[in-house]
């Protein structure tokens, strides 16, 4: 007699997904040692996350850069589809406002796609790394107010989790004004990008492995300070 497993079909065999958008500052001031360290950290993140059997199937990563212009370097995909030698170049100013708008829009569109496909999903992540302040919006202008409101309300309504990291030279006060009170921006210690991206990989692996009802405790941050 055939095994029951051979007879049944599974409605949704695909894994649940964790949509994650990395918003990475590639403005001119990130040149030299900073971008080299960021590139190395990013490649480490791709390797470690891609090497995890669950995270490699569940983390749905998009990378958006903002330097002169905002560019979707890579749309949502498993980390294993990224080039192992991914390398970002720097140029221009810091259109952080547009990058945040783009990232937020991408997350909501991705969730709508998941719902259409019947793919289960975790609360998505928006992760910002910058060494400056936005040059396309300023406190009090229309874009600033709209972006800040969307971030605050979105985090409060648990539509996504938002993390901001300031690299040496960042205007931490500006970042603080954008971040929710219970998760202020973190200042990266020196060029500890490797530690930052290892933490990000461990965190995403923990989320990917979390079961219903488990409160995901993120690993302690040893690469930055509040």
């Amino acid at each position, binding site marked *: 007699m055939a095994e029951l497993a051979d007879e*049944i079909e599974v409605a949704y065999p695909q894994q649940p997904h964790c949509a994650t958008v990395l918003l990475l500052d590639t403005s001119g001031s990130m040149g030299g040692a900073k971008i080299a360290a960021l590139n190395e950290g990013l490649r480490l993140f791709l390797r470690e996350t891609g090497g995890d059997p669950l995270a490699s199937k569940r983390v749905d990563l998009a990378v958006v850069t903002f330097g002169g212009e905002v560019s979707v370097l890579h749309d949502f995909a498993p980390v294993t589809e990224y080039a192992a030698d991914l390398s970002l170049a720097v140029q221009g100013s810091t259109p952080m406002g547009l990058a945040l708008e783009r990232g937020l829009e991408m997350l909501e569109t991705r969730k709508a796609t998941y*719902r259409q496909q019947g793919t289960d999903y975790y609360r998505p992540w928006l992760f910002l790394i910058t060494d400056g302040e936005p040059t396309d919006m300023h406190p009090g202008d229309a874009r600033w107010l709209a972006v800040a409101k969307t971030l605050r309300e979105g985090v409060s309504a648990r539509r996504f989790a938002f993390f901001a990291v300031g690299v040496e030279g960042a205007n931490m006060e500006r970042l603080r004004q954008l971040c929710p009170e219970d998760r202020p921006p973190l200042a990266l210690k020196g060029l500890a990008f490797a530690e930052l991206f290892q933490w990000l990989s461990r965190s995403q692996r923990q989320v990917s492995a979390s079961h219903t*009802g488990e409160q995901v405790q993120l690993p302690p941050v040893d690469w930055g300070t509040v």
Partner: protein
Amino acid sequence: MAVEAAIATVRGAWPAGADLDAQVLTAAHAAAAAVRARAQALETRPRELACTLMVILWCGGHVAVAHIGDGAVAGHRAEGEWEVLSLPQESEYVNETRFLTDTDWRAHLRVTEAEGAYEGLVAFTDGCQRAALLRNGDGLHRPFAGFLDPLARFARRACKAAAAPPEGEGSTADPSEPLQGLLQSAKLRDASDDDKTLVLIWRDTADG
């Protein structure tokens, strides 16, 4: 212990009478109290014993379900159709649901009733949910026959085997073994690494 408390409560009130919905509600309350008492005895927070719960009473053509959390109950009509009798808790994220141990659990306990000529019921936890339920574009769940129909066929065979075991053979086989095999199969493990519980409640139609 939640299940044991619920069963004890229902047994104590049997025969069920007409108010199945009140009985499943009482049973759910007994289950909640039992879990909290256990947490207190262990000197731990109730959250450490978090669980979802489904209490199902089926009597004649009436089914009542008290349900908190994810998982679902599907009913199979004699004509061959499936319907979801109790839906999973609404939750946007896959690793979040409501539990019997939440402080506001009463607000999220759902009691549903259904009437019909059901041949059988299938109850399952979240580990089987992605296999057993489809979702419309608006997020509403509906039963997936590709998973459930083979279970109905299995249940009918099991009922027949129980009613008339082959001559000369004493039956020592555990009739639920094929279900255990299913839950441990690679196909279901790949679909979800959440806990998997599957209960089939079938009426032998030879009884009428």
